[in-house]
């Protein structure tokens, strides 16, 4: 009987730890205001991220852009069969970016960028209905990218550079749906890894067939964040040989930051107008499963199916130079979720979304611009479930109705001379 109980208790205890659909498209206020297009738009050092090849076409010698966004994201959950409901109380995310480029010669520009294309911060009330999947998660990845941009001729350029990533993850969930200590406190695990470093690269090209039309393509490589010897902390575990969790142990886990291919174009018309279209393809299929390897022998390793699929984002942007002082922007993008049916997990409840953006640039003096943007992400209500959670060998789907939205105001500065 002991063996059976041990199995029953432990097999539940390590089911899932993951992050998913954690791409955060906030890599520049000018671009964001135009639906986060930019692979074929030449107007600032945001190109370090969007298309390094374009940097060499910037008019000024020195271009610096920096900014911050405030991410106000909200998730509501309810299950109509049981009446359970939850609303996230996630902290406001503040992703930053900094780009600088310097045109060394007519055919060579050098640049550097710091940006945060992946991350997630979701916080549910502890012990909510889906607490066996997640109580809270905070995932950060900072990309640092030295960049070179080479002009082949006036119509064609290439660019790229290495990427250094440093990241961290902090994730907490309950061990299963019921395990608790003698006072009813739910048993939980926190995994934390800091200073996880990895490298990748980006390469891009820009083609200008006419004065008005630009075409761009950027590829950013997949980067696997290999967390080694992260800290796993088990709390409120019953004092029993049947639940032999150590207070702390370490873990190994790999988390992929998937590759992304972007192609797009921009077209100037009627003098003051610019239209841009980007297509992102994110190669999420690398995220098949998240496997956590705990150092402690008494904590079984955890294998968690993810089965993400590659997904596309369709981006449209429009820019209007209203006056010498103001440039107005607007945009829209449709963001396909990489999450497949039956793999909809509450820590990143992302179904397909429609995103509306707007913004403006104010010229303050000759060299300085203030860039403002606003993003509203609209997700339809969705009835979805995560089916890969197991209890005693039985799949125990966690399902319900989700409604998500996000409001993201952002401010930035552009300096050029």
């Amino acid at each position, binding site marked *: 009987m002991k063996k059976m109980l041990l199995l029953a208790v432990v097999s539940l205890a390590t089911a899932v730890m993951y992050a998913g659909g954690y791409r955060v498209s906030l890599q520049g206020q000018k671009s964001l205001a135009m639906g986060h297009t930019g692979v074929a738009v030449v107007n600032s050092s945001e190109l370090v991220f969007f298309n390094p090849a374009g940097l060499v076409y910037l008019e000024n010698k020195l271009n610096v852009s920096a900014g911050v966004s405030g991410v106000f994201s909200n998730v509501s959950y309810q299950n109509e069969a049981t009446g359970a409901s939850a609303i996230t109380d996630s902290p406001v995310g503040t992703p930053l970016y900094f780009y600088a480029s310097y045109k060394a010669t007519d055919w060579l520009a050098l640049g550097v960028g710091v940006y945060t294309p992946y991350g997630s911060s979701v916080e549910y009330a502890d012990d909510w209905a889906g607490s066996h999947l997640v109580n809270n998660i905070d995932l950060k990845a900072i990309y640092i990218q030295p960049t070179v941009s080479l002009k082949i001729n006036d119509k064609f350029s290439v660019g790229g550079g290495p990427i250094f990533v440093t990241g961290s993850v902090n994730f907490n969930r309950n061990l299963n749906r019921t395990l608790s200590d003698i006072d*009813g406190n739910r048993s939980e695990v926190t995994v934390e890894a800091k200073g996880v470093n990895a490298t990748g690269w980006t390469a891009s090209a820009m083609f200008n067939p006419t004065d008005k039309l630009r075409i761009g393509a950027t590829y950013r490589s997949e980067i696997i964040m290999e967390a080694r010897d992260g800290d796993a902390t088990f709390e409120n575990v019953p004092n029993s040989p049947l639940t032999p969790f150590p207070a702390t142990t370490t873990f190994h886990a790999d988390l992929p930051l998937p590759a992304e291919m972007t192609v797009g174009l921009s077209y100037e018309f009627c003098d003051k107008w610019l239209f841009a279209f980007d297509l992102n393809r994110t190669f999420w299929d690398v995220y098949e499963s998240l496997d956590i390897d705990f150092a402690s022998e008494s904590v079984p390793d955890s294998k968690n199916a993810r089965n993400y699929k590659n997904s596309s984002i369709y981006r449209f942007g429009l820019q209007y130079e209203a006056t010498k002082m103001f440039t107005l922007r607007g945009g829209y993008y449709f963001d396909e979720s990489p999450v497949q049916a039956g793999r909809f997990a509450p820590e990143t409840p992302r179904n397909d979304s429609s995103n509306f953006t707007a913004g403006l640039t104010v010229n303050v003096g000759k060299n300085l611009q203030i860039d403002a943007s606003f993003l509203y992400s609209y997700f339809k209500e969705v009835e979805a479930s995560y089916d890969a959670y197991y209890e005693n060998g039985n799949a125990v789907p966690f399902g319900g109705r989700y409604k998500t939205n996000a409001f993201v105001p952002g401010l930035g500065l552009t300096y050029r001379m």
Partner: protein
Amino acid sequence: MKNTIKLMIGLATVGLVSCDAEFDNPVTEAGFYTSGTADFTRYVAVGNSLTAGYADGALYITGQENSYPNIMAQQFALAGGGEFTQPLMDDNLGGLLLNGTQVFNNRFVLSVDENGNPGPVLLEGTPTTDVATSAAGPFNNMGVPGAKSFHLAAPGYGSANPWFGRFQTSQSASIIADATSMNPTFFSLWIGNNDILSYATSGGIGVDQTGNLNPATYGPNDITDPNVFAATYSGLVDALTANGSKGAVVNIPDVTSIPFFTTVPYAPLSPLNPAFGPQIPALNATYAQLNAAFAFLGVPERSIVFSQTAASGVVVHDEGLEDLSTALTQVLIGGGLDPGTATIYGMQYGQARQANAGDLLVLTSSSAIATVDTDRVAELMSFGLTQAQAGQLSVVGVTYPMPDQYVLVPVEQEAISTAATAYNAAIEGIAASKGLAFVDAKSRLGQVANGGVGYDGGVLTSQFVTGGAFSLDGVHPSPRGYAFTANAIIDAINETYEATIPKVAIGNYGTVTATNN
């Protein structure tokens, strides 16, 4: 331009202010679930330990939080239900003090012994809940452990039962008066279990009082007369419905659906057991004498033989058998046994037989079987036996017939089931005449006991420790078992009152608690 800026600021403001992602039809909004023709504004639960949330042989906070009335009240809150208060204990140890002296045990927890075997063990620690210092009621949960039907209406019952004494509103209060003083708009009533259960759990040592209409003369382990039950029940329902309150009444499950009676097999004596197997030839040789006497007396079915190849039934004392002590003594003397020994044998085996599939051994017998009963040793020595002789005749279930308190023999089971059938007929009849929701807990828990009931994490069964439905006392449900019960009651309420109260996911409720002292 200005407008654009205004729009931007406006959008930003909207973003900061109205953040929540709202559903078209939120479950938290009034009207999503309906109470139908019922009104859950003030829900009061009346009953015994089951209603109190008693589990693992004790009452403690987390158990009370998982009482079926509290689970239901959380669901009622989605359809206009109000606050639900409970006489919470002060800790999760579970014991009860009376003026500083412990009068009830701490709870059981699942503990692993030094050999790696898990089993129920009393949780160590000094309890902090004292009858003298507990807050006075009334509370929405008026479940009182130990209460029988007629206790609910008894003024001053708190002086006899500290579980009520700890929150009675006055010395002369009755449970039902305190309950109705809350002016409930909705009630649940689950009472009558103890009217048979204490007889059952004590192995039938009490008296079947059927025919005795005066409960004041009943002992604690007696079966309540069905007419007394029916009249009492009717009075309770009248009191609870006096202000027009709606409610749900719950019938009495079979005692055979609880692990207290189904866990210990009638034939636990295995020849493979190294402590028992080698003794079999000697035991059978001794019993051969007795078996010859049984045959001579015309009761060969009472023969006691331990199999060398299969597990054998324990030897039990069956009060349903004719007492052949005297005759047996005479025959044994006639067979050449000395009168002293023959007298002792006659006394010991005058109503003895080997257990069969019709007998139910209570959970507490497992720790007694095949152990030496020291009281019996002392008793036999007082009759003149040596300590060795007395010891040989005091092995419980092997040489010393299992005393009455450990076995529910068929005649006792029949008394219980006859009374329960009558109680249930009364409950169902009263429910029908008052238009109350009737909950057939007998059949729902019967399903759990016979094959189990599937849920998203497996199958809920009555298997002790592992089945999930029962706590470690083998009598009271686990939180998951209480959640299952709450769902059964919600079903009946929804049907009777055209309400749409959602049920809970029982897989979210725990079972037994593992802890080593």
